[in-house]
């Protein structure tokens, strides 16, 4: 098992973003801040998946043959395109969730005038 070195910096980034996102969602009381932290957390997972796709000496997964006839019949190493496609879906999910959350936030703000969670929970119980 290789130690965590400079070659694994992207995983450290992903872990840091995940923890920042979790911290924001759990500790902050402003609902809009929680939403932003949620986005940060989702980006962390996206970075994780995309880093899985990297291959040593691999180029971006665009077929080189179509654009540069000179490389036909030579072996080209491509990065793995599947995690990229999966993360496209994950980004769309993230955008949709943010859309729904923003609509809910606007509604909460217009009704209660505040976005602070502790205040809202008090007024909810009334």
């Amino acid at each position, binding site marked *: 098992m290789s130690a965590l070195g400079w070659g694994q910096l992207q995983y450290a980034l992903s872990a840091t973003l995940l923890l920042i996102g979790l911290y924001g969602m759990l500790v902050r009381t402003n609902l809009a801040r929680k939403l932003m932290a949620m986005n940060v957390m989702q980006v962390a997972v996206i970075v994780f998946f995309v880093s899985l796709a990297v291959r040593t000496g691999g180029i971006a997964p*665009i077929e080189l043959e*179509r654009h540069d006839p000179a490389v036909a019949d030579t072996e080209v190493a491509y990065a793995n395109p599947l995690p990229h496609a999966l993360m*496209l879906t994950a980004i*769309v999910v993230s*955008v*949709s969730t943010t*859309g729904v959350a*923003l*609509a809910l936030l*606007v509604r909460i703000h217009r009704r209660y005038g505040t976005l602070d969670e502790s205040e809202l929970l008090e007024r909810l119980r009334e």
Partner: protein
Amino acid sequence: MKGPFGSPVLDTASRLLVPFMWLFAAYVLIHGHESPGGGFQAGVILAASVILLRLVRGARPGVVVSSHGALVMACVGPLIYGAIGLAALFFGGNFLDYGTLPLGLEAAETRAMGTLGIELGVTIGVAGVLVLIYDTLADWERREGADR
């Protein structure tokens, strides 16, 4: 955001930008087969152009597409996707097996055209949804009054 900006600079600049954005969206959609791109990205660019106009021209309904039009787009897009997928059922393949569509091309090309059709549906759907999100957030008061 409710009224137009009233600035000739913004108005002219947006008028210049929007056709190029549409062209770029079409390029991204069609080229998604070989290079980064595809349905989602093209849809987002289209939506961005509409939202740009809404920001500059104000929340007057019907700038390029009305809220109702956006809802229709959001529904019709995925329906195109589903229709192509279901059409494959009628030609003997499984769902989404566009290799069986009778387009008269060779196998790989048929699949490519099927994918293009699906991505077109996705583009329309995504553009509609994003414009709808913007409209919902920006025109909340007016919509709430009309819908109750």
